[in-house]
């Protein structure tokens, strides 16, 4: 009873990970959790939508097919815009990242749903995937020439050590900034929403005055919900745009 009441307005409770099927391999916990469930749900929702909407392959698209086509062209335009036509070789990766993050963010907006992207390890893993792809492809394609990324052309020889140091630090901080940006936005948004919604619940417990004063946090909750939908899309887009820019570095390391 008491625990439930505490959880109802505990803004952190929504990030708790609980085991559904315990799995342990070599003493390490690989349990299928609510986080795992929502990763699978995210993938299932995105895949089913994209597969079913394009099943008819209509020359004149249905609404659902148009949405699938628009997301395709949206990501393709973003990638082509920053990485050029060469960048299209990474299109499946960028599209998968965008759809995964976007659908995970959107599913997180449903009450009682777990937000996959509010876990730093998930966003960090996705960021490492991006930076790993950039680094490996960069060295594979350009060899040592990829290191030109850290030596901008047209810089006087004297300041090259300083500039290169800064460039290296900025490169290494990319996965951190990429992952923390998404994680922190989702986490903060959901906490804010929960705190304001919690105020409404708490204030209604204080009689007529409480109910009257609960109107303000209720309005704020509605407004923040709208804002969070925007953020859910925007952060998926930002993640995608930055991914495209980093991939452009792998393709053309000399600025």
């Amino acid at each position, binding site marked *: 009873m*008491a*625990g439930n*009441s*505490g959880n109802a*307005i*505990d*803004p*952190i*409770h929504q*990030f*708790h*990970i609980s085991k559904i099927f315990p*799995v342990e391999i070599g003493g*390490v*916990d*690989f*349990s*299928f*959790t609510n*986080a*795992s469930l929502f*990763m*699978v749900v*995210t*993938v299932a929702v*995105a*895949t089913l939508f*994209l*597969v079913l909407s*394009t099943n008819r*392959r*209509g*020359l004149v*698209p249905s609404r659902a*097919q148009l949405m*699938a*086509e628009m997301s*395709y*062209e949206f990501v393709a335009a973003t990638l082509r815009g920053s990485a050029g036509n060469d960048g299209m070789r990474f*299109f*499946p*990766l960028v*599209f*998968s990242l965008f*759809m*995964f993050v976007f659908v995970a963010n959107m599913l997180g907006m449903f009450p009682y749903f777990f937000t*996959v992207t*509010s*876990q*730093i*390890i*998930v966003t960090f*893993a*996705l960021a490492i995937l991006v930076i790993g792809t950039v680094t490996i492809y960069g060295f594979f394609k350009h060899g040592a020439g990829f290191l030109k990324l850290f030596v901008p052309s047209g810089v006087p020889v004297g300041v090259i050590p300083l500039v290169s140091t800064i460039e290296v630090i900025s490169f290494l901080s990319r996965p951190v900034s990429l992952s923390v940006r998404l*994680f922190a936005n989702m*986490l903060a948004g959901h906490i804010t929403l*929960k*705190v304001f919604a*919690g105020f409404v619940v*708490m204030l209604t417990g204080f009689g007529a005055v409480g109910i009257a004063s609960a109107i303000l946090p209720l309005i704020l909750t509605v407004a923040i919900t709208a804002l969070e939908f925007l953020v859910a899309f925007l952060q998926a887009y930002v993640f995608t745009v930055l991914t495209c820019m980093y991939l452009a570095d792998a393709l053309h390391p000399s600025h």
Partner: protein
Amino acid sequence: MSNTQGNLNTTAEVGIVEDSGSFPPFDSTTYPSQLLWLVLSFGVFYWVMSKVVLPRIGGILEDRRDRIAGDMAEASRLKQETDEAIASYESALAEARKKATTMAHDARSKVKAETESARAAAEEQLAAKLSESEQSISKITAESLSHVGEIAAETAGELVKALIGGRAPAKAEVAKAVDAALK
């Protein structure tokens, strides 16, 4: 950790305090499981996207682009054909008009020439007839005039005979007298 859980009016802040020992996103015991399931689910998702969904949508878009380009080419081809047909029709029309003008002109000049020649022939004929008639008139006149003396002599002879009875005077005599009288 759980000394505040009994409190019914636990506030949000207390909630944070309550769980501060293990803020879920920083609880590293959940990382292996999250990573494993992320790799599995995202891996499957990436595979489906790159093998099924993206080629399919790309194909749909390309088909549409090709179809539109084909239709546009067909439309411009048909338009060109129409333009050609219009041009040939107009040139045929102009030629026909020119021909009609020439034909009308020819017919007019032909008719005119025919009329001219017919008139000339008729005039010639008339002139010939006129001159013939004039000739015959003058001949008749001359003839008539030549017979006047003879007739007069004869008449005179008959008159004399009737008047004096008996035998008629000699023809030569009468002619002589008539000629004298006529003079």
